[in-house]
C-alpha cells in the first residue's frame, strides 16, 4: 500500500555525510497512503469491524501507513481517544501517520498522540460514477460499506498503484451495488439478478453473473468484463451497453464469456 512513486527518498541523506552544509536535504514527494474512514467514535466498534475487514486480506495491510479520515465523526461531541486509537491500530499492524478532515479539537488531540495533520486537499468524493441506466429504485443496501478505502494523499493521479483490485467473496444480492473506484473488481460469488457491479477498471466474476455489470465506467474503453457463467441483465463498457431483457441469447447463456469494445461496438464472446 505505501507504494511510493518516488525514489527521491533515498537522497534524503546525500553521499557525503561529513559535509555539514548538506547533512540534510528537504524535498517534497508524493505518496499513496491508505485512508481509514471512521464512522463512529466508539473504538470497540471500530476495532471489531477492523478485525473483520483485515481478516479478508491479512497481508495486504501489514505495516501500511494509514491516514485516519475524521469527516464523519467531526461533529460527534464525544472525544475520540487518539492515544488508544493509535495503540489499537498498531496492535493490528497498521501504522497511523496522520489525520485529515477533523475539527480543531480533534487535530489538537491527534497531534498530542503523535499524529500529523494532513490538510492538503479535503477528501472530495471520488470521480462521479453514475450508473448508466437507473430503472431500478435506489439500492436499499450498498455493499460499498467498507471501513477502509483507498485514496491519494496528494493530488497526483499517476500515483495509482499498478495492481489495484477490489475482491468480493460474498454473493452480491438483489438491490445491492458494489463499486470499485479506480480499480478492477473481482467477484468470487454470484452476482444475482437486481444486483449491480461497477468498476472503473475490469470486472471478473468467477460465478454466475445474473445482474448488471458495468466496467470502465470512467471512460476506459479498454476495460473488459469476464465471467464464468453468463446470465446478465445488462453489461456495459465505458458507457456502451447492452440489455438482455429476456435473458442472454442461447449461444451465450450460462457460458464463460468476455465482454469488450470493438470500436463503438460492444462484443460479448464465448471464452473458449
Amino acid at each position, binding site marked *: 500500500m505505501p507504494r511510493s512513486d518516488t525514489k527521491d527518498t533515498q537522497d534524503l541523506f546525500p553521499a557525503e555525510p561529513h559535509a555539514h552544509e548538506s547533512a540534510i536535504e528537504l524535498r517534497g514527494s508524493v505518496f499513496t497512503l491508505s485512508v481509514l474512514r471512521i464512522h463512529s467514535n466508539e473504538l470497540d466498534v471500530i476495532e471489531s469491524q477492523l478485525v473483520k475487514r483485515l481478516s479478508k486480506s491479512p497481508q495486504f495491510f501489514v505495516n501500511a501507513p494509514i491516514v485516519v479520515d475524521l469527516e464523519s465523526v467531526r461533529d460527534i461531541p464525544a472525544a475520540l481517544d487518539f492515544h488508544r486509537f493509535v495503540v489499537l491500530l498498531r496492535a493490528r499492524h497498521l501504522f497511523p501517520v496522520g489525520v485529515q478532515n477533523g475539527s480543531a479539537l480533534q487535530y489538537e488531540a491527534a497531534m498530542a498522540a503523535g499524529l500529523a495533520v494532513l490538510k492538503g486537499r479535503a477528501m472530495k468524493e471520488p470521480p462521479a460514477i453514475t450508473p448508466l441506466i437507473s430503472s431500478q429504485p435506489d439500492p436499499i443496501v450498498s455493499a460499498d460499506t467498507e471501513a477502509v478505502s483507498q485514496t491519494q494523499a496528494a493530488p497526483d493521479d499517476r500515483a495509482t498503484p499498478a495492481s489495484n483490485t477490489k475482491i468480493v467473496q460474498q454473493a452480491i444480492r438483489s438491490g445491492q451495488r458494489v463499486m470499485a473506484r479506480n480499480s478492477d473488481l473481482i467477484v468470487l460469488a*454470484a452476482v*444475482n439478478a*437486481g444486483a449491480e457491479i461497477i468498476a472503473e477498471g475490469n470486472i471478473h466474476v468467477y460465478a454466475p453473473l445474473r445482474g448488471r455489470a458495468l466496467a470502465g465506467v470512467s471512460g476506459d474503453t479498454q476495460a473488459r468484463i469476464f465471467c464464468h457463467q453468463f446470465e446478465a441483465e445488462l453489461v456495459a463498457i465505458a458507457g456502451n451497453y447492452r440489455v438482455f431483457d429476456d435473458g442472454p441469447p442461447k449461444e451465450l447463456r450460462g457460458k464463460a464469456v468476455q465482454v469488450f469494445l470493438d470500436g463503438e461496438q460492444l462484443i460479448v464472446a464465448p471464452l473458449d
Partner: protein
Amino acid sequence: MATIIVVTSGKGGVGKTTTSASVSTGLAKRGFKTAVIDFDVGLRNLDLVMGCERRVVYDFVNVIQNEALLKQALIRDKHCDNLFILPASQTRDKEALSKEGVGRVLDELRDSFDYIVCDSPAGIEQGALMALYFADEAFIVTNPEVSSVRDSDRILGILQARSKRAETGSTPIKEHLLVTRYSPRRVEAGEMLSLKDVQDLLGIPLIGVIPESEVVLQASNSGVPVIHFDQSPSGQAYDDVVARFLGESRPMRFLEPERKNFLRRLFGT
C-alpha cells in the same frame, strides 16, 4: 440466553406466519421455552393462526411504549405450556417499533426463553427491518417462483448488511432456506421453479420443503398450527424442519408428485 430466529421473506403471503406458528410450536413441543412475536403491526395474523385472538389484551406495542408489562402481554399457547405468543397491535402506526423498544423487549425475553421466533411482515420497511435486526438465525421463506426468489435475495442482502450482527461485525446471521407451497406437480409441469433452481439462485443451505396443501388453510382457519396435523405431509414437513434445525439429519420428502395408488383412488382420499 435465547436464540433469536427471524422468519422473513420480503414477499407477502408466502407462508411466514404459517412457518412461525409451526416452528415455534415444534420447538416448544420438544421442551424448549419459546416465544413467538408478531411484528406485523396493523395486520395481526399470528394470533389467529395460533387460535388465541380472543385472549389478546395487550400487545407488543403496548409493551414497547411501557403501557403494559411483558408478562401481561404474553399469551400462553393453548396446546403447549412452554409456548408464548406476543401479538401485534392492530391499530398503531408502524414506526412504533423502535430499535430501542424492540431491543429492550427482546433483551427481557432473552433471559427466560430458549428461542424467540420473530414473524416478520412482508416488505422491507420498519417492521421487517426490526424483525430481522436482532436475529441470530433466519428462516428465509421462499415460494418456488421468480418474484419470491428475488425478494428473498434482497432480504438476504439486508440481513448481511443491515442487521445488528452485520453492523457490529460479529458472526453473520445463520441463514436457512425454507421453500414453502412447493407443488411437485406444477414443478414437473414447468409452471414453477424447481427446488434446484431456487437453491442455485439463493445459494444458502436448505432446511426444508413444505408441500402445497389444503390442510394448511384448514389449520389456520381453525387456529391450530399445521405442525399439530401429524398425519398430513405439510405437518410432517414442518416437523422435519424443526428436527433439522435442532441438528437431526432427516432426508427431504414430498418432493415428487403424489402418485395416487389404486385403493386411494377408489376411496378418493
